[in-house]
């Protein structure tokens, strides 16, 4: 790799105008890890959290905590304001036209998709209906539909993917025919490949179908504008984008959300309750039953501000440079003994490298890498149908974020070499 230019190295070691070394200072976990190697390459599963996010939550709990939407006293009002501001912050981040009314907070992306699925199913799906998914969905965008199918009996069709992990759109028109809902991931959590969301949304709309995008792996890494993309619903999760656990969101076009019936019932989502029935509240409250994850929403808003300060375009550039270097270095060092799944062109995928090593099961690989402080995921990545298609039970997966740099890739490669030797 002596062909690396100074600019290329620089790209890997900084994000926008900050060095990765500086950025790491914002993440307390890198402090703890100073005496032992800590090469965290599993942000695709869950990211680390900057101090600013933890502080925002602590400050909230230490000065203003009270239940939201109901109190007339000062700290309850302030808590409500912080919670509602978090909604607007997240909404603006994704280009929501009406952030205050279009963001529904959930506990994670999975709940966001279930909410959409359960709610849409009630008004829209009958035994003769068709729901279209892709073969590379995460279980979060497969199983909710399967559960509903067991109850309602509609048809699920799948858009297939090709050998490089790209969706195969050659029969799209046929597949979408008669569909009421089309739901697809924006970025594969296995391959990292990006899906042509705008095209899919348009195709769905041309059939009169509603289009749901699973942004769990996309929103943390790319600039996104839901209006520009023309999608109807977007699922997101906080813990993959520097936010706390326990928070996610569903964005939906206001007009659509208004038409959707509620999912869970409880406090806050009602306008009136009588013993013989209830009237739902207005959007987005209609979908938020019970005490919401208040501190978590506040933490997520802080994460969004942190990401915005760094710059989403800069984040993408940084990850692309790491990805490019990783793909090349792994290829050079291991040849055919390591198989990388998905495209090898870094511009066409997110910062994710899924691979297997000949003779070493991913589980064992991950365990051995851990001895060198290298954290990668091993398993089916909640995408068992993808694994089946690839003909493997599991892969190892390294994924990058803002706190990773060139040395992390080098550590990965070194550790892989050790593992290979160990099992040789």
């Amino acid at each position, binding site marked *: 790799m002596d062909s690396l230019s100074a600019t290329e190295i620089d790209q890997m070691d900084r994000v926008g105008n900050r060095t990765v070394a500086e950025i790491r200072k914002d993440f307390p976990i890198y402090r703890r890890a100073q005496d032992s190697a800590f090469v965290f390459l599993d942000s695709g599963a869950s990211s680390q959290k900057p101090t600013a996010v933890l502080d925002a939550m602590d400050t909230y709990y230490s000065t203003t905590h009270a239940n939201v939407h109901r109190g*007339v006293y000062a700290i309850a*009002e302030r808590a409500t*304001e912080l919670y509602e501001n978090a909604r607007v912050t997240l909404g603006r981040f994704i280009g929501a036209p009406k952030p205050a009314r279009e963001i529904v907070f959930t506990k994670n992306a999975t709940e966001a998709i279930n909410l959409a699925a359960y709610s849409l199913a009630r008004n829209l799906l009958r035994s003769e209906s068709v729901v279209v998914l892709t073969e590379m969905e995460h279980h979060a965008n497969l199983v909710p539909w399967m559960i509903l199918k067991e109850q309602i009996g509609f048809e699920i069709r799948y858009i297939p993917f090709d050998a490089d992990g790209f969706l195969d759109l050659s029969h799209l028109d046929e597949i979408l025919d008669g569909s009421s809902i089309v739901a697809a991931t924006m970025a594969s959590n296995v391959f990292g490949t990006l899906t042509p969301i705008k095209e899919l949304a348009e195709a769905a709309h041309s059939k009169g179908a509603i289009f749901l995008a699973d942004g769990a792996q996309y929103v943390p890494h790319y600039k996104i504008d839901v209006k520009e993309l023309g999608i109807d619903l977007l699922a997101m999760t906080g813990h993959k984008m520097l936010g706390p656990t326990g928070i996610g969101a569903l964005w939906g076009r206001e007009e659509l959300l208004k038409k959707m019936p509620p999912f869970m019932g409880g406090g806050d989502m009602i306008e009136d309750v009588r013993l013989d029935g209830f009237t739902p509240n207005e959007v987005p*409250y209609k979908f938020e039953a019970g005490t919401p994850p208040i501190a978590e929403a506040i933490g997520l808003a802080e994460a969004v501000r942190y990401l915005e300060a760094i710059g989403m375009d800069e984040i993408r550039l940084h990850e692309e440079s790491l990805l490019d270097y990783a793909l090349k270095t792994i290829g050079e060092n291991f040849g055919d003994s390591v198989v990388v799944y998905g495209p090898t062109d870094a511009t066409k995928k997110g910062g994710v490298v899924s691979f297997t090593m000949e003779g070493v099961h991913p589980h064992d690989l991950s365990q051995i890498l851990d001895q060198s402080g290298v954290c990668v995921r091993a398993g089916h990545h909640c995408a068992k149908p993808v694994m089946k298609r690839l003909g493997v039970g599991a892969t190892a997966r390294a994924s990058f974020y803002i706190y990773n740099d060139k040395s992390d890739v080098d550590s990965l490669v070194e550790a892989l070499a050790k593992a290979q030797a160990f099992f040789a």
Partner: protein
Amino acid sequence: MSGLEDLYREIILDHYKNPRNQGELPTPPAVVEQGHNPLCGDEVFVYIEMDGDTIADIKIGGQGCSISRSSASMMSTAVKGKNSEEVHELIHRFKAMMSVEEERPGHEGEADLKEFGELAALQGVVKFPVRIKCATLAWNTLNQALERVQQAG
């Protein structure tokens, strides 16, 4: 009790204790719309009887806090005898004063406060965000009642 004078102006307490236009109207010819404040359980019933395009009579029912009741009471005196365009304009301006309109008309709203008469007394509510819903409840309900009239017409 510092800080509270902004919220509880004399005139508000007066309308709360002596609400104007309280009661019901026979429907039809009147229409009635019910409004809820989902956060606190306050309820308002707004009855309007139209004479052509004009609100000939209006009555207010239900229950609520001082802000909600006085706002409804003041609204009832303000809109009686006005035509629907004038009423819509007033609703718009009132909600702008409460800063809950999507497009806030800049400082326009404030400049117009004088014409608001008694309603201007509710301006202090803006500083108490949770109470804004109390102040706007009757107005939103009136808006719905007008929509119902239009649909029927």
